[in-house]
């Protein structure tokens, strides 16, 4: 599952970044690295882009870009 599949308010931990995705480099630069915890805190009017809380920052990210961030939900660990 990826960040794009998370529901509003859901918290998850980054498992892997899909390096084949064209946005992967930018995503990593913004601090989406494996092991980091993130939460979807807001969704824009059409459910896209998402506002994600990561490393104490809020980052707006399109679902398309968020698809390269593979996550696991801690409860499922």
């Amino acid at each position, binding site marked *: 599952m990826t960040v794009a599949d998370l529901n509003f308010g859901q918290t998850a931990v980054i498992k892997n970044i899909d390096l084949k995705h064209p946005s992967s480099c930018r995503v990593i630069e913004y601090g989406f690295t*494996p092991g980091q915890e993130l939460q979807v805190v807001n969704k824009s009017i059409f459910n896209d882009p998402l506002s994600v*809380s990561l*490393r104490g*920052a809020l*980052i707006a990210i399109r679902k398309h870009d968020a698809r390269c961030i593979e996550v696991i939900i801690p409860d499922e660990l």
Partner: protein
Amino acid sequence: MNSDTVTERKKLITLVGPPNSGKTTLFNLLSGKKHKTVNYPGATIEYSVSGFLEQYGISAYLMDSPGIVSLIPVSPDEKVTIDSLYTHPDYGKPDLVIVTVDTSQFSRHLLLAKQIIDSGFNTVVVLTMNDLLEEKNFTIDETELSRSLGCNVIKFDPRKPDGVDTLINMLKHDLNAGQLKTQNRKNHTEEDVLCIYREIEELEKKVLRDLNNSSENNPHIAKANRELVIAGHGAGIKIPDSLTLKIDSVLLHKFWGIFIFILIMALMFASIFWIASPAMDLIDTGIHNFENFVNEGLGDNWFSDLLSQGIIGGLGVVLVFLPQIVILFFVLGMLEDSGYLARGAMIIDKPLSLLGLNGRSFVPMLSGFACAIPAIMAARTIQNKRERILTIFIIPLMSCSARLPVYGLLLAFLFPGKYFLSGLILALIYVVGVIISLIVAGIINRYKRTFLNFEDNSSFIMELPVYRVPKVSNVLKNTYSNAVQYLQKAGPTIVIFSLMLWLLTNFPADVKTNPDDVSNGDSVAVQLSESERISNSYAADIGKVMEPVMRPLGLDWRVGVSLIATFAAREVFVSSLALMFKVTESDENMSRSLINEMKNAKINGTGQNLFTTATAAGLIVFFMLALQCISTIAITKKETGVWRIPVLQIIIYTGSAYLLTFLTVNGLRFFGIN
């Protein structure tokens, strides 16, 4: 005192930092009054270069660079930014690099600092926004950080400039002590970034201090925080600013978010028009009085005519827009400084992406309502080339402030005295302009392979900064420099064209006017000969060539000449009509007497009224669509690097403007509205 000798090269300090890290605020604080914008050869990046404020006693250039997230370029423009950081073509290698790091974003912002240090630059790290981190009950141990990074680190908030002396002393020391090292340019990959982040995470554990553990002021929070830290993730530092989260829950709310967004935009435009109008009237009256003053002082001769109509009139056209431009940049600056602009971009991203645009197109499009030139330059923040070109392509359709006096004149002609109705129609003109631009974007995006012939990855990732009370002095400083830029860019062109137009309408001056006529009070004779002079002038010769083009629109050569003049700047239309119809100097304001002249104007030899409801409406349609601004064409060529884009724009916009004007004029006439 500085130890530089004359023969030595002046040193260069470059400011680098991620967006929203306080980099530009720091630049504004340290830099002297004289800013210079520097273009890179063959590229579109602009840096501000300045000296230091004299009181600091540092003799070096200070260069501000565009905000970057890392040293890995993702767009051609970013590549130039980063290449030039290593060696600037004009200023050389930086002797010292100041990297700003927002401590509330410590791990994310330290990435760039680490990359800079690893590349071998002589670096000073400035930790900003320390108050935000302290609100979360954390602080950074700068001594420890300095030791780990191997460079000087200082806590300094450029928004509250206490302790600037310590920073200055550090800069002086490092500037003189630091030797130019050979920078090793690393070819960073995703793996490298991941590796740096791992290092940063280790570093963070060493330098991050929990304020509660040391002071024990609030044992409950301290205990809670300790538990959080024990829990591993979700420690206090990793929770975003709580006030920002609260505000976002309203401003980014699914339903209220878009509602507030529309409201803020509406308020912004309302302020541009309503707050600006008294100031604009004041400037208009002032210019007019000045013209009269010159006329009275010099008497009625060609020189006073040249001075009052050619130069002062031209200058007035430039100055009249200043209030609107100042308000637009001020409001934009306040929105940006408060942190809302990034949210606006996020809210509008999805609808714009359906049309092939990007949330980042939002600010350039918004600036397009003031003037297309800064707007087209602002499109540089769009990383994706296709989206950037598409944004630039539609910006001329945003009704810029230069069109406002034209609409103002035509609406006053159409609906004399009906201010509310005029205002409503004006709002409609703006909305229709936006709708047309979106349709154009949609069509071009659909056939992008024909028009733009490339396809690439579109993405939108953007930091949403913490909401802060905007710092008015900073916003004012930026507004001021934008206003000066406007005057410098628009001023000379408009005055030159105004002069040329004056010459074209006044020469050849075969028909002599006797200056004594005025003193005799025989003004009718003067007016008659002046209108004769115009119809014999060079302007008339040019205009008569275009008569066949203007006729289908129900207009004549005089409007044609005025339309040609608008290529200098659209607002010239009003002053050129005034010149063409020889509006007499009177105590009334210019537009009112011009409207009277327009009502009486006849198409040569037909006795038919030139300005009717149909033709005035047609002209409004023409101004809405036509690309008739040389500066816009030039800047589009410069920013896109090809002539194809501006040429396409001229064909599509001016062609459809002509066609739609023809349809409007003849359609209205068909329905009996003349």
